[in-house]
């Protein structure tokens, strides 16, 4: 009995050790293969990601309640003086907005008449919906958020996520019919958006830098960027409309032009997902013989 056990132990112990070492090696190899596959076939993991997010959804929604409660407590701590100051500022802003409203109505009428003159096809109907931000990734250097929108809204990849200030990102993973979408924010290291400078319309690429900063790449040498200048979407990719404000130039270090998102990306409570549809708006020419 003891001899048999000793013989068994002589084989089993080194075998167990070898299997343990091999399994670690296999797991490391699997991780490397996964990294490669995820880089080349990102879509493969999209469905899996959203399924997992859906599973975590009830917990995230439940966790939002105490967070919102604490937020409302802090909100109630605002003093009357602060509220009076805000009230005054809001009245001034309202007066200003009324002027802009009148201007917008005039421009809209002008726009309609010009479109009719150019025989422009009406752009694709723009649809949008609001959604609460449920989760934010906190384990990597990337930056994306999970947004919950009404289930009947037609979700798809590439929708523009906006706040009142401007664009903050795009949907990259969606779970249709569930109202869950992952929004890749502008400061994620894989985020690249074709943009233009507001003043000169010089084209460039806005790249995320993972620390809340953005870098303006491939800007032509003759473009003269100014600190404080707004950066708008260029619309060259055929996905985004042109003219959406994204960021503002904060610093110019030689060739490196740094920008900051126009909306605070770490304080997103609500987002609006906008489907701009197709961007091509010019109708086919309708030449008729005289």
């Amino acid at each position, binding site marked *: 009995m003891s001899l048999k056990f000793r013989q068994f132990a002589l084989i089993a112990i080194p075998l167990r050790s070898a299997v*343990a070492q091999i*399994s*670690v090696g296999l*797991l*490391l190899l*699997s*991780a*490397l*293969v*996964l*990294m490669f*596959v*995820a*880089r080349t076939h*990102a879509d493969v*993991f999209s469905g*899996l*990601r959203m399924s*997992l*997010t859906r599973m*975590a959804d009830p*917990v*995230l929604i439940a*966790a*939002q309640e105490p*967070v919102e409660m604490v*937020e409302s407590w802090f909100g109630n701590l605002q003093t009357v003086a602060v509220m009076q100051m805000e009230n005054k500022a809001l009245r001034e802003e309202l007066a200003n907005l009324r002027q802009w409203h009148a201007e917008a109505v005039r421009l809209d009428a002008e726009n309609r008449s010009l479109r009719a003159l150019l025989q422009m096809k009406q752009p694709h109907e723009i649809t949008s919906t609001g959604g609460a*931000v*449920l*989760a*934010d*990734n*906190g*384990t*990597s*250097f*990337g*930056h*994306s*958020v*999970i947004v919950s929108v009404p289930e009947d809204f037609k979700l798809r990849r590439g929708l523009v996520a906006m706040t009142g200030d401007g664009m903050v990102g795009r949907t*990259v*993973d969606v779970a249709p019919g569930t109202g869950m979408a*992952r929004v*890749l924010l502008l400061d*994620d*290291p*894989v985020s690249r958006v074709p943009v233009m400078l507001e003043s000169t319309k010089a084209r460039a690429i806005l*790249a*995320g*830098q*993972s*620390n*809340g*900063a953005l870098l303006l790449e491939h800007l032509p040498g003759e473009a003269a960027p100014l600190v404080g200048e707004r950066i708008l979407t260029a619309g060259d990719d055929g996905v985004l409309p042109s003219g959406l404000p994204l960021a503002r130039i904060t610093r110019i270090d030689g060739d490196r032009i740094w920008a900051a998102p126009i909306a605070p990306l*770490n*304080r*997103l*409570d609500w987002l609006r997902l906008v489907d701009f549809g197709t961007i091509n708006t010019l109708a086919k020419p309708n030449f008729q013989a005289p």
Partner: protein
Amino acid sequence: MALMPYRPKDTAWWQVLGDAGFWLMPIVSITGALLLSLIYIPGLPALTIHWPALVMIYWACYRPQWQPTGLVFVAALLCDLLSGTSLIGITALIAVLITTILRSQNKLFLALPFWADWIIISFCIFIWRGFEALAQGLLLGTWPGASVWFTSAFVSALAFPLVALVLSPLRRAAFRF
């Protein structure tokens, strides 16, 4: 199996269930850490405490038998998928590497005073975050700022005693049961 409390052959079903409970502790605690890392608090930066890493490191140091390397791999992969990182597998790679090294030094961690463990574990967290930053820089071409990397690792290292405080009663429950 060696770490399960000794039970005679006529062990009651509820005691067997209790033994299984010990094996579930890492799974439940890692899942909790994953969900905790996803909870969104507006106004706080996203890159804060790496809760799943802290929990995995804790079990690797103090109860490696309860946390097989396969579990670390799966948990880290879930972490990558839920966090939305484009480098799926990077956390799995780093987690398997670091926990394999730490679990081999299990006896040392049990013998050393907690403050010494804390220093070693903090060093590991800095390496963990450093590897992530390196992989991101090399594969995505975007190098995270040193302040982001340092802040994230530093805050995570500071949070380790809290994780130890929560998990140590669970670890010690094995001896009392």
